[in-house]
């Protein structure tokens, strides 16, 4: 066996190992990628829309007070810039929460009890701080 063919065998083994590792986790990682990336992209898009509203309304200043979640719906229907800028920020804040919820589902699917428990604790902590502390 020449050194070259030996090297080829090693390279093939490495490539096979890499493919095996990647395909095993590919689907789940892809979805997490889309959740996180999608959250940021949607947030940026809503924020840019908010800035367009600032220009269209001829406002000389950008709103500096956020809209409380309860009053948000009305502001969105009236197409105020403050409403859409606040919505963009909220979309971003909820992106990691959505990701943890997805992790919970994927560990449930794997029947990995220990990690279902841990993810449930993290999710509970998050929801607690979102709604009880706030």
């Amino acid at each position, binding site marked *: 066996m020449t050194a070259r063919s030996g090297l080829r065998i090693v390279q093939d083994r*490495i490539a096979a190992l*890499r493919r095996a*590792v*990647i395909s095993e*986790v590919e689907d*789940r*990682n*892809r979805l*997490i*990628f*889309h*959740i*996180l*990336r999608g*959250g*940021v992209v949607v*947030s*940026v898009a809503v*924020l*840019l829309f*908010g*800035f367009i509203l600032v220009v269209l309304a001829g406002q000389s*200043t*950008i*709103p*500096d*007070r*956020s*809209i409380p*979640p309860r009053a948000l719906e009305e502001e969105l229907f009236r197409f105020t810039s*403050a409403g859409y*800028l*606040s919505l*963009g*920020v*909220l979309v*971003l*804040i*909820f*992106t*990691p*929460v959505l*990701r*943890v919820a997805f*992790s919970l589902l994927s*560990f449930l699917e794997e029947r*990995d009890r*220990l*990690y279902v428990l*841990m*993810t449930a*604790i*993290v999710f509970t*902590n*998050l929801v*607690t*701080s*979102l709604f009880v*502390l*706030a």
Partner: protein
Amino acid sequence: MSPFEVLVLLAIAAFLAGFGGSYLGIGGGVFLIPFMTIVLGVGIKIAIATSLIGVIATSSGAAAVYVRDHLTNLRLAMFLEVATTFGAIAGALVGLRLPDFFLFIVFGVVLFYAAITMARIRETAKQRAYQAGDESSLSKRLNLGSVYFDQEDQGVYRYRVERPVAGFGASAAAGLFSGLLGVGGGFIKVPAMNILMRVPMKAAVATSNFMIGVTAAASAFIYYSQGLVDPGLAAMVIIGVFSGTNLGTRAMVKAKASNVRVAFAACLAALGVAMVLRLAFPGVPL
């Protein structure tokens, strides 16, 4: 400074914070908060709230790429997030009663220790390859060991995770600081994973970036509901950070692990100096 100038400067700062944050595995709050309070003259509470939003943007933007590129250890992240979220809530509830001086001393010592250790340890491919092997029974039960693909040398590395309990404790402390100071806590999590738990540098950076968004989200909503989020400032930060992470992640994935280490160590040392200055001159808002 006119409001327009403030927004433009803030977007540039956020771009740099997003770049540096995604390269180093931190949220970038440690840069943004001093910049906003000192240079832009923004109030400390609004600066913290805006910074938390920036941390979430850095985390989500960067973590997406690192998860796709298989640098992130998802199990390790979940395990440590249990500690950080409890820490963050404790930080928001009781941490405020701890004396500032005590916190800063502990924090400063940890920073300098981590900076020196990270600069001294050299991470070579050979060393990484030797990190596979028997793990402790707890790590094994938690299935923490993982594999990652390093673009630096096109290598696939299997690594074990050591000292899970110590890492869990350090993450709880990191969570406490983020609840307290409005930062992601990445500058504690990365050294904790890299030095204590022996996770390779790039995997540690990616995993830290993945975790900090969750920690910051908890605090960010509290600040939001108290009306402390300025949507204009937050919007500029999100847009700036998003552009920054697009470049930062690309640089980190290709970078040499040793370069990431040195950059991180330098950053920690600078932070330590800033802490000491703050202790020496209590009036300086950092």
